[in-house]
C-alpha cells in the first residue's frame, strides 16, 4: 500500500512497535501449539476447536492467535467476566468459566484465564477458550434440544481453579463429577492451563525485555493501530445501504403434534458510511424455545468475521478488540440474535453466527458486489454420539463437524467441502475415529450437484454414513439449512440443502429434523448430506468447457448440466 504523505504517528517508535506487536502475536500462536499438541479430545487435538489470546488488564483482546473467527467478538467478554468477578490477582492463579450469560459463548466452550505479572505489576491475561466435547446435561455431547440453559449442562461462573498455583480441589471435584469421560476432560484442561502458562510467561518475558511501562503502552497502542487500519481500509470502499432477510430451519423443539420444526426469520440492515459500518437486526424474530438463541457477542462474532473478509481479505490488520470500534452491531433484546437469560443457546453459537456472517455478504452485495461471496454451507454440521463401546465397556462421547461448500466468489468458483466463515475446524481421520469410537464410516465423499449453479459454481458439500456398532448410541444432530438453501448472488443459484436420516436394520429410512437428540439403535446407519454453497453470476454465463469438466469429474451430473446450464454432455 502506498504511503506517500504522513503516516499516522504512533507514540512508540514504529520499529519497536512492530517488534513488540509481532512478539505478542507470536505468544498467542505459541499458546495454540501447546494446546493442540497436548490436548486429549479429538475435537481439540485434531479438529482445532479453540482460540488463544493475550488480553490487557481491562480484558480487551490485544492479540488473537490464528484461530477461529467465531471467537473474535466474544473472547474479551470472557476475560472481563473474570475481572469483574474477582478483586485481585496473584501469579499462578487460573480461572475457569463457561456461562454464556456471563462472558461465555455456549456451555461446551470452556474459558481458562490466567494473569501475567512483571514483579507486582499486572500486565494482562492469557485466555484459552476450548470446546469440550461434553459438559454434562442429559445428552452426551451436551447438544440436546432443551428449553432452558439449565438443561444444557454444567454452568460455571468465573471461579478460581488454581490460587497462586495451588489447585482448588473443591472446584475440580465439582467439574469432573459433572462431565462424561472425565479423564479425557482432565487432559484437555491440563493442556489449556499449560497453554496459558506459556502465554503469560511470554508476556512476563516481554516486560522484562522492554520494561512493563513500554509493554503496557504498546499493548494499548496495538488496538488503536488495528482501529486506524480498519478505518483506513473502510474509507476506501464505497458507501451504501443494504438489507437481507433469511429464515432458519427451526430450534429443535417441536410443537405438540407437529412432525416438523417451525422456521423463524432473521432480518439485517447494513449502513456503510465513511469509516463506519452499522449492522442492525431490527425486525428479527423473538427468541425461540430451543437452543437457537445467540447472545449478542456471538452475533457480533459472525458479523466481524465477514467484515474482515470483505474489508481486509489479505489480513493486513492484526485481530484484536480495536478492530471493531468502527463497527456497530444493534439487535433487539430478547430476539434470536440477542438472547436473554435463561434462553438455551448451544446451537446458536455456531449456527446463528454462520447465518449472520453469510447474510452480511447478501446485504452488502448491492453496493460492493466485487467484495462479497455467495452463501456458504451455513452450518457447522455437528454430529455427536455417546454410549458404551462394545469393545472395552468404556463410555465414550464423539463430536464431529462435517464440511459443506464454501460460497462462489465474483471471479472464482466456490470450494468443495471446506470450513467456511466463522469455523475452521478439521475433520478427524476415519482411521483415528474408528479406533477411538465404535462406529464405521461407510462412505465419505463429495455430493454431486450440491454446488449452486452459476457463472462461478458454488462449492459442493460432503455426504457421509456412520454405522453404529455393537451397542445403541444416543446421537444428536445440529445442522442448519435442511430447508433454507444456501443462497446464490448476482444471478447464481442456491446450493443444495442438507439432509439427515437414520436407516434401521429393517431397511427403513426415516428423515430427521435439523436439530436435536435421537436414539441410534445398534447397527443402524446415520446418513448425513451437508449443504453445498450458492453460485455467483448467471449459470448461462459459465464457460461450457468448465461445465463439461465438472460432469467428467462428477461434481455436476449430466442431467443438471442440461437443466441448469443448457449444456449437453
Amino acid at each position, binding site marked *: 500500500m502506498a504511503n506517500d504523505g504522513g503516516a499516522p504517528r504512533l507514540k512508540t517508535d514504529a520499529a519497536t512497535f512492530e517488534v513488540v506487536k509481532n512478539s505478542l502475536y507470536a505468544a498467542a500462536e505459541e499458546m495454540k501449539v501447546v494446546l493442540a499438541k497436548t490436548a486429549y479430545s479429538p475435537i481439540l487435538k485434531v479438529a482445532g476447536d479453540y482460540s488463544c489470546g493475550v488480553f490487557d488488564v481491562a480484558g480487551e483482546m490485544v492479540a488473537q492467535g490464528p484461530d477461529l473467527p467465531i471467537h473474535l467478538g466474544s473472547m474479551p467478554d470472557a476475560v472481563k467476566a473474570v475481572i469483574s468477578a474477582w478483586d485481585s490477582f496473584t501469579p499462578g492463579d487460573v480461572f475457569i468459566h463457561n456461562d454464556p450469560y456471563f462472558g461465555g459463548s455456549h456451555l461446551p466452550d470452556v474459558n481458562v484465564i490466567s494473569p501475567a505479572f512483571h514483579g507486582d505489576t499486572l500486565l494482562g491475561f492469557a485466555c484459552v477458550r476450548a470446546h469440550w466435547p461434553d459438559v454434562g446435561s442429559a445428552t452426551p455431547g451436551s447438544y440436546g434440544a432443551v428449553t432452558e440453559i439449565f438443561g444444557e449442562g454444567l454452568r460455571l461462573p468465573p471461579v478460581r481453579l488454581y490460587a497462586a498455583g495451588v489447585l482448588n480441589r473443591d472446584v475440580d471435584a465439582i467439574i469432573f463429577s459433572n462431565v462424561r469421560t472425565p479423564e479425557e476432560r482432565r487432559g484437555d484442561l491440563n493442556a489449556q492451563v499449560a497453554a496459558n502458562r506459556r502465554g503469560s510467561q511470554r508476556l512476563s518475558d516481554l516486560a522484562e525485555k522492554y520494561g512493563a511501562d513500554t509493554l503496557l503502552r504498546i499493548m494499548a497502542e496495538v488496538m488503536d493501530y488495528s482501529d486506524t487500519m480498519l478505518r483506513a481500509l473502510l474509507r476506501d470502499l464505497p458507501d451504501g445501504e443494504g438489507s437481507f432477510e433469511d429464515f432458519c430451519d427451526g430450534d429443535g423443539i417441536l410443537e405438540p403434534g407437529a412432525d416438523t420444526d417451525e422456521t423463524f426469520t432473521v432480518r439485517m440492515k447494513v449502513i456503510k458510511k465513511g469509516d463506519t459500518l452499522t449492522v442492525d437486526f431490527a425486525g428479527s424474530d423473538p427468541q425461540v424455545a430451543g437452543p437457537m438463541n445467540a447472545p449478542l457477542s456471538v452475533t457480533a462474532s459472525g458479523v466481524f468475521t465477514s467484515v474482515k473478509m470483505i474489508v481486509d481479505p489479505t489480513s493486513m490488520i492484526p485481530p484484536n478488540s480495536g478492530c471493531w470500534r468502527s463497527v456497530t452491531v444493534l439487535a433487539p433484546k430478547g430476539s434470536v440474535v440477542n438472547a436473554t437469560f435463561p434462553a438455551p443457546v448451544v446451537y446458536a453459537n455456531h449456527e446463528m453466527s454462520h447465518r449472520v456472517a453469510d447474510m452480511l455478504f447478501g446485504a452488502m452485495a448491492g453496493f460492493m458486489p466485487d467484495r462479497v461471496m455467495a452463501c456458504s454451507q451455513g452450518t457447522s454440521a455437528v454430529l455427536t454420539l455417546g454410549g458404551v463401546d462394545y469393545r472395552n465397556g468404556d463410555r465414550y462421547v464423539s463430536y464431529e463437524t462435517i464440511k459443506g461448500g464454501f460460497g462462489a466468489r465474483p471471479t472464482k468458483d466456490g470450494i468443495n467441502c471446506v470450513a467456511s466463515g466463522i469455523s475452521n475446524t478439521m*475433520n478427524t481421520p476415519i482411521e483415528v475415529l474408528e479406533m477411538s469410537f465404535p462406529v464405521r464410516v461407510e462412505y465419505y465423499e463429495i455430493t454431486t450437484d450440491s454446488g449452486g449453479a452459476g457463472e462461478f459454481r458454488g462449492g459442493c458439500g460432503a455426504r457421509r454414513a456412520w454405522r453404529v456398532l455393537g451397542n445403541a448410541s444416543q446421537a444428536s444432530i445440529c445442522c442448519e439449512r435442511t430447508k433454507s438453501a444456501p443462497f446464490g448472488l448476482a444471478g447464481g443459484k442456491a446450493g443444495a440443502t442438507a439432509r439427515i436420516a437414520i436407516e434401521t436394520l429393517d431397511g427403513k429410512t426415516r428423515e430427521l429434523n435439523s436439530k436435536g437428540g435421537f436414539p441410534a439403535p445398534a447397527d443402524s446407519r446415520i446418513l448425513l448430506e451437508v449443504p453445498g454453497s450458492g453460485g455467483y453470476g448467471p449459470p448461462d454465463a459459465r464457460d461450457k468447457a468448465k461445465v463439461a469438466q465438472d460432469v467428467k469429474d462428477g461434481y455436476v451430473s449430466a442431467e443438471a448440466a442440461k437443466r441448469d446450464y443448457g449444456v449437453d454432455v
Partner: protein
Amino acid sequence: MSWRVGVDIGGTFTDVALVNEADGQIGIAKVPTTPRDFGQGVVQALEIALQEHGVAANDVTLLSHATTIVTNAILEGKGARSVLVSTRGFRDVLELRRSARADLYDLFQDPPGVLVPRHCRLEVTERLDAAGAVVTPLAESDIDAVIDFVRENDIEAVAVSLLYSFLNDEHERIVGDKLRAALPDIPVFLSSEVLPEIREFERTSTTAVCAYVGPILESYLRRLEEATSGMGLPSLYVMGSSGGVFDVAEGLKMPAMAIESGPAAGVIAAALIGRQLDKPNLISFDMGGTTAKASLIKDGGVETTSEYEVGGDGNVNRWVHGTGHPIRVPVIDLAEVSAGGGSIAWVDPGGSMRVGPRSAGAEPGPVCYGKGGTEPTVTDCNLILGYLDPEALLAGRLAIQAEAAREAIGKHLADPLGIDVEAAAAGVLSVVNNAMAEALRIVSVERGHDARAFSLVAFGGAGPMHAAELATALGIREVIVPPIPGGFSALGLVATDLKRDYVKTLYAALADVDLEEVGAVYDAMEVSAREMLRAAEVPESQWVLERGADVRYSRQAYELTVPAMSGPVTPETLSDLAAQFHEKHRMTYGHANPDEAIQLVNLRLTAIGKLEGLELRQSGAGDVAAKKGSRQVWFQKTGRVDCAIYHRDGIGADDEIVGPAVIEALDATIVVPPAWRVQTNNSGHIIMEAQDGE
C-alpha cells in the same frame, strides 16, 4: 588425491562444492542454473568445476546432488498423469483433506491443488475394520477395471491407498501384484510399502506424491546418471529431505524422499562444522535474499519432523498451512521466515514499520544495486548503516548507488514517519532481526532447549551480517562463520552419510504391547535396511541402525519421536521408551503426566551408512593486507562509530580482532558489533564471542 563433489541447483545459480578428502581443502564453482534442462546445467557445472580445480573424474570418490526437480514438478503442476485407487466410498480422501481452509479471511483464496483429478480416482470394493480384520472381501474384478482405465487413458503412474493397509496389507498387495503384472511399465506405489502409517489422508497424500513425481524423477536421474558416468564419475547420490543421501534405485522406490533436498544441506554442513570444532550444540542460521532459515543441532544430530507439506505456502514457523500436499517422511526441522536482504520495508496505514513479505529478489534487487529497484530493502538499510562497502561489492564488480538507497529510505520510510534516514534504517534492521530471532526461538526455546547453551553457525549471503545481533537477542554468546558462507550449503552434500528412514505403525498401548511383535517389526525393517546398505556397497563396519518410536499419551493426537534401545526387545526397552517420552514431553510442552498410559503409534528405523569424516579448511592468509581501512558504522549500542574494516582473505590463523569491526569477503560480509571479539583458527573459521558484560 581423492575428492568429494556436491552439486546444488538453486533458483539462479548451480553451486558445485569440492572437498579434498586428505586435507579438507575446499573448492567452489558457480554457474547459472538452466531451468529448461537441469541435467544439462549440472553436467556443465561439473565440467567447469573439475577443470577449474584441476580434479580428474576418476579422483572423485563421491558425487552427491540436491535437486529441486520433484518440488518444481509439484509447484508447476507438471507431474505424471496418475490414478489413485481407494477403498469404495473413499475416493475423495485427497480432496476432502482435513477440511480446514488455509487462510481464515481471504475471500479469494484458491483451494489446494489435488494431484489426481476426480475422474482418475477409482474405487475397489473392500473394507477392513479398525483392527485390520476383513469386513468386506476385495472384489478382484474391480482391479480389472483399473487396469482398463490405465490403458485407455494413457496413465503414467498408479497410487494405491486402502483404509487400514498399515494394519493389514493383504488387499493392497493383491491389487499391487495384479497391476504390476498387467502393467509392467507403469510404476505402482502402495501406501503399505511407501508409508505403513495411520491417518488415511496423510498416507494417501504421501503415496500420491510418489506416483505424481516418480516418473519425472526417474527419467531425470537416469539421464543424469548416464551423463555423469559418461564423464567417468562415480555413481550418483541424491540428498534426501532428512539430510542423508541415497542412491538412485532407493530414491525411485520412495520419490517423496527427494523433496526439499536442498535446504537440508546447509544444516548438514553446519553439523559437520560442529564435529570439526568439537561443538555439538548448534543453531544453524541461513539468510539469503528472500528467506532466512533456522535449525537446531543437538549433540551433533539434526532434528527432523514428519509434519511437512510440499507445494504450498510452506511450513513457515509453527504450522503447516494446509495449502500443500502433506508428505509424512522425515524432513529436517527448519523454521523459515520471509526475511532476507531483498525484503522490502514499508510503512503501513497504521503507521507501523513493516519488512516483507514482498522481496525485490534478484530483479530488480535492492535500490543500491542500481538495477531499477525503487523500494528500500534490508540490504539498502545495511548499506546506510555502514555494514556494506559504500563503493562496490563482489570485489568491485558491482558498483553501489548509496545516494539512491538513501533517497528511497527517506521517501518511503523516514519522511512518512518523521524520523531521519539513519533511524529509519536502524528501525528496519530491528524489525527484520526480530523476525529472524523468532525463527531461532521456534527451533530452540519453544522446543524446550536453552538457546544460551548453543553456538550460532551463520551462513548464506546475508547471515554473517546479522548473526551477532541475533545471538545477542537470544543470549547466545558464540557465533561461527564458516569458510565460504555464501556457498556453504553445497558443502553439506559431501559431508553427510547414506541414510534411509523406515516406519511402520504398531498401534498399541505401551503397557501391554507384545514384545515379540515389537521385535518382529524392528527385525523386518532391519532386514530391509541391511539389504539397502549392502546394495549401496557400504562396508558393514560403517553400518549404523538407529531405532526409534513415535509415542504419545493415549488420548493425545500428536506423537513425539524418541530413540529406542537396540538389541532384543525386553521390558526394559519399553520402560526406557516411556521414561524418555515423559522427559521429552515435559521439555517440549512444560508438563508431563507420568501416571498416564502411553500409546505406541509407530516404530521407526534409520539406516545409516557412515562415510569417512571430513574436515573443512580454507587456506590461511592470502597476499592481501588484513586491514583495509575504516569507516563510520552504526550499532544499536553505540550509534555511529569509527570502525575498522578487514579483508577476510588477509586474516591469518589465530588472528584476533576486537569489535566494532567489519570483515569483508567476496561472498559475505561479517559484522562484529562492539563488545564482540573475533578469533580465527587454522581451518579458516571465524569465531565471534560476546565479551563479558554482553
